[in-house]
């Protein structure tokens, strides 16, 4: 116990090591939280998207904390659903087996900017023919605007208010989501207050009518949304465990295997060494990324296939050369000669004398190579070869790049995964470089 404490106290001499460990611990904490809070199947479903998941999410919405940087209040998404009991409903029986349904969907708009989109989802059940409805809009200053008269509704209907060209013309050419909410005194700002949307329809006596108004905001959640309206929080959270697992498994897999293989090869020399060198040279001619791209395109894009392939291709990779160079120098050392002189076996020399001498110098490399693999996953994703189902940071980067996020000014979309990747990479690097100083004391003493 005391040893541990002194060890920990010793760490204080390396603030960057502590910083690195803190960063990685935070990411591991977030990963554990994520896996528990958003189970795998739910994450996959949320990431796959589709109308049932993203219908009420605005597309390309910035994170809500963008509010802090603007003087204006940015609109959130407002959902008013009569089926959920919002608004008021009056039904009045007419003769001839029909009734007049009047649904009022009120909402309070307290933002300075205009919403992204306005949609009215209406559902009619138990009606054989289409029903005719009138939609009108009531502003806080008492103006009534008729959006559409005699809209025929059958089954479920979506009225894309912002794309209504007739309405646009009626609002003197201004986009409806702007024109309907603009302040008459200052048309560049939205008028705050209580709005109402009124739906009036004549439906058969047995029919039910429900309506849901969605006022899509320009900000959503802590992470914003992408071009399909998916909440970016899901891939940002789930990206952490995937990146860590991929990076660490690949690094450990290749690092440990390469280390011992190069030790054995260098020490035994002769045929084994030649064979290893041969494989390494061949492997260097076959670069990892192109093969990954080839396999990803022609066979499978699963992250586990990629992981296995990365390990298989990297064992006899460039690290083998640097390891070999170090072992070659180390095996010339006098104490190895002494060990041989007293008759130590190959096994003993490799694992008791050679490896411990080189391991400390290479341990930092094990850690330093983790970010390389983390970024490799992102690289594959940017080439369109990311895992087809998993939400990863690389996939977000890929989407952002492909959809021109930088060009269109959706910087958050690119910056969020990029910054997370950077922090994780720097975390591992900090640990690696500090370990380099801990284990290579010559660097300290000079």
């Amino acid at each position, binding site marked *: 116990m005391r040893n541990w404490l002194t060890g920990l106290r010793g760490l204080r001499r390396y603030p*960057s090591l502590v910083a690195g460990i803190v960063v990685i611990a935070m990411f591991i904490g977030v990963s554990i939280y994520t896996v528990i809070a958003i189970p795998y199947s739910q994450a996959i479903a949320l990431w796959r998207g589709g109308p049932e998941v993203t219908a009420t999410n605005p597309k390309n919405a910035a994170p809500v904390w963008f509010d802090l940087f603007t003087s204006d209040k940015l609109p959130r998404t407002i959902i008013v659903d009569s089926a959920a009991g919002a608004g008021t409903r009056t039904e009045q029986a007419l003769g001839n087996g029909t009734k007049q349904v009047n649904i009022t969907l009120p909402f309070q708009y307290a933002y300075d900017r205009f919403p992204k989109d306005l949609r009215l989802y209406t559902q009619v059940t138990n009606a054989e023919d289409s029903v005719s409805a009138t939609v009108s809009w009531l502003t806080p200053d008492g103006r009534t605007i008729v959006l559409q008269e005699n809209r025929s509704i059958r089954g479920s209907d979506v009225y894309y208010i912002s794309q209504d060209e007739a309405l646009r013309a009626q609002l003197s050419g201004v986009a409806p989501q702007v024109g309907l909410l603009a302040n008459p005194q200052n048309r560049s700002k939205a008028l705050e207050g209580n709005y109402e949307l009124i739906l009036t329809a004549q439906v058969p006596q047995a029919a039910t009518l429900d309506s849901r108004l969605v006022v899509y905001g320009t900000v959503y959640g802590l992470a914003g949304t992408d071009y399909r309206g998916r909440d970016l929080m899901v891939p940002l959270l789930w990206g952490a465990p995937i990146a860590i697992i991929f990076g660490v498994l690949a690094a450990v897999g290749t690092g440990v295997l390469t280390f011992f293989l190069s030790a054995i090869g*260098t*020490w*035994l*020399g*002769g045929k084994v*060494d030649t064979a290893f*060198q*041969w494989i390494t*040279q*061949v492997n*260097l*001619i*076959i*670069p*990892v*990324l*192109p*093969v990954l*791209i*080839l396999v990803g*395109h*022609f066979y499978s894009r699963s992250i586990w296939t990629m992981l296995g392939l990365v390990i298989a291709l990297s064992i006899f990779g*460039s690290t083998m*050369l*640097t390891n070999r*160079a170090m072992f*070659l120098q180390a095996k*010339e050392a006098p104490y190895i000669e002494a060990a041989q002189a007293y008759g130590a076996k190959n096994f003993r020399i490799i694992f008791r004398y050679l490896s411990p001498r080189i391991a400390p110098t290479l341990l930092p490399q094990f850690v*330093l190579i983790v*970010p*390389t693999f983390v*970024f490799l996953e*992102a*690289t594959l994703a*940017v*080439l*369109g070869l990311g895992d087809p189902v998993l939400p990863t940071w690389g996939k977000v*980067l890929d989407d952002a*790049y492909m959809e021109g996020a*930088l*060009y269109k*000014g959706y*910087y958050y979309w*690119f*910056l969020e995964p*990029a910054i997370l*990747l*950077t922090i994780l*990479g*720097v975390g*591992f*690097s*900090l640990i690696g*470089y500090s370990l*380099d100083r801990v284990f*290579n004391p*010559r*660097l300290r003493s*000079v």
Partner: protein
Amino acid sequence: MRGTIIRLARMAATRGLFLFLAVVVGVYLTVVIANMGGELDKVRTAQIRERVGLSILLNPVNRQLPPEQLRELVDTEVQNELHRLGMDQPFFPKRSFTYLWNAMTLQLGWAERMTSDAGSRTVQLILVERLPFTLALFGTANLLLFFLTLFIALFLSRRYGSFLDKVTIALAPSSSAPGWFYGLFLILIFAAVFRVLPWGGLVDAPIPSTTLGYGLSVAKHMILPTTAVVMSTFFASIYAWRTFFLIYSSEDYVELARAKGLSSSNVDMRYVLRPTLPPIITNFLLVLITMWMGQIVLETVFQWPGLGRVFYQAIQLSDTPVIIGVIVIFGYLLAVTVFALDFVYAIVDPRVRIGVGGERR
């Protein structure tokens, strides 16, 4: 002296053979993967059948033929076409080796779908057209990187513990990100926000009419990708080489040289740089290899018309001849580099004795 030359020649021969075999294995693997182990032939056969079938059906002469005869005609024509393309042979082993032989002898053949910018369908022209751009970008970036980092590292190792040294070391973790990642950040800053440098591509549109204007425009487009490549390894290289220099500059013989009163530049060049050259050269080679792989994404991100982008486009179009062509050229280039490196290694490191390097004493 004569013995040394003979040994060198023998080493050159064995190493050359060895590397050539390595290229053969690498290219053969690519041939197999890029043909999906022969599965892609089914797709090609279907495409040929469709093409041949359409051309026969659209020919008015064949309108009168009864269906059986028409089908027979299509079948024979498809067989002829397959025979002409050599596709009636099985993929293993015959055709895969034909691919290999053609690739190794640089008879790269015709692309299946891609064309060069000038409109040619020969793989050779497609690649030759792009090679200068790749070499220009990565040659510039790598030479810049090599000499800058080497001399900055030497400079810092002399000022161990100074403020500048500490700053550089603190920035070393920045190199964990690949070039394209910095590329995106650079695009964000200089193209999206400040709008001072181009988003990507090779030259401005319209293309400048004068040679000077063209050169300047290309240079302007090269700034961001070059910076991205340099940034991605700059501080890590400095760190790695500084470490080597620090270790070697505390050796006794360096102390002795200092004690003798040699000038510090003399000590640096002859006592520190000389023995550290082998690892430096290995390091440089490894950087080159990783660069080769990284350029695929970098060129895609910057829309740079180089080999990496051709490779990526070829894969997306499943254009096997182009894929194999890129890998062959890459393999040969790499083999030549490694071959040259072996000699450089033998020259700069007397401890790696020719012929006995790998054996136990």
